[in-house]
């Protein structure tokens, strides 16, 4: 955390938050055999991996895990600038009859989730799709909401919410930058 950043979640509370989400998922879905986790690249993938571990501890079942790259489905591809890099999507299970829990780090405008729903549609017709996010910062531009929210953090549009994950950034935390006085 630099001096410009304000803490929103430290490493232990981030972990506790994921434990809580895992229990909430377990509570809503008694039949864990139908469940599948799909992490949205990049940080959603690591959060989904951790949820998978926690659900294994709770239920004793290993829930299938997929990764989704939504670049091809973005609604701003026709805007100015070189096209963003497309990375791999891996969904190593049949989506039919599955309850998919989409996992992402921050829910903001909802456009990423819109793209993810379109993408999943091209892989099959799941029984249900739910959304789990670590942080909901508001400012939706589409009618989308999360089913599992780690923490609601009201923000201004000028602020940024940064999630750091050990696997990518070397440590676990959620911070807010910009905004106030900036």
């Amino acid at each position, binding site marked *: 955390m630099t001096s410009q950043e304000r803490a929103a979640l430290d490493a232990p509370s981030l972990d506790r938050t994921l434990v809580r989400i895992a229990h909430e998922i377990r509570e809503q879905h008694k039949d864990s055999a139908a469940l599948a986790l799909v992490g949205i690249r*990049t940080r959603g993938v690591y959060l989904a991996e951790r949820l998978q571990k926690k659900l294994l501890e709770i239920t004793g079942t290993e829930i299938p895990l997929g990764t989704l*790259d939504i*670049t*091809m*489905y973005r609604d701003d*591809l*026709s*805007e*100015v*600038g*070189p*096209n*963003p*890099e*497309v*990375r*791999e*999507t*891996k969904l190593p299970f049949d989506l039919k009859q599955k309850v998919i829990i989409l996992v992402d780090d921050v829910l903001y405008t909802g456009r990423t989730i819109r793209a993810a729903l*379109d993408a999943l*549609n*091209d*892989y*099959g017709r799941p029984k249900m799709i739910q959304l789990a996010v670590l942080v909901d910062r508001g400012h939706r531009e589409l009618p989308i909401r999360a089913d599992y929210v780690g923490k609601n953090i009201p923000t201004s549009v000028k602020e940024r919410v940064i999630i750091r994950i050990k*696997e*990518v950034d070397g440590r676990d935390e959620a911070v807010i930058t910009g905004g106030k006085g900036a």
Partner: protein
Amino acid sequence: MTTASKVLWTRKDLLGLKDLSVGEIELILDTAKSFSEVSQRDVKKSPALRGKTVVNLFLEPSTRTRVSFELAEKRLSADAIGMASGGSSMTKGESLWDTIANIEALKVDIIVMRHGSSGAPHRVSNYTRCGIVNAGDGINEHPTQGLLDIFTLREIKGKIKGLKVVFVGDILHSRVARSNVWGLTKLGAEVVLCGPKTLIPWGIEELGVKVVHDVKKAIDDADAVTLLRIQMERQNETLFPSIREYASTFGLNTALFKRAKPDAILMHPGPVNRGVEIEGALADSPQSYILKQVTNGIAVRMAVLYLLSGALKNE
């Protein structure tokens, strides 16, 4: 795992591997890896090029490349239209420049172009705002074929650097060989060219490749062998005594291929002339990746079209 600061694609055209940097080549290969998954789904479609129009202008016969491009375009949701010289106004005397100007006036985004003259797409690209993808120009380059060969090799071997890659056959008339030579040498492979003296371009060693005329020596310890067809349609003079003699001297068979490394792979850009440059059984052996190349071709072409379309909107 960090997202390395990758090269961004800013070219509106793909004319040849000669012009590309190592970073640009790797960007295409990595993007192609991501796109290869689209063709394995139930719904083989992604909306990345929705609303874009692509014209496939094939002024020389082609089946596999044209079909591969068309599938790539459709799997990206682009609107694809085919144009061949036979059915176009070019037979009524329209010049290539006028044809291109007309296509541009139809608000087309990308032209995939095959032409019998080396350098034709390069010339055309300066006169149009449309993106140009070279789908083979004379004996110069066939960049998407070169890229799909390199993609297949990298997929199986996990790397390119340090591999010994051998090309046997008609190098002189092969745009596939030239694109491979540019790409593979840039990525650090050892490239060996083999064929009758009359079918090896003079001075090609200057590009950093080795020329070996004895096919046995050429294949020794190879990691990959790519066979090239004798392009009879491009030969006005007799460059070797007969097809039969060529087959007995340079034709690859199972015994000869054993000289390569045990895990060596066999590739061929097609069309295959069984019994001439390659023994039929060898073409069907588990070490043959000829059909894998065909499958990979779609992903590589999807990647190229996706990257070009990103550069085209800067207007």
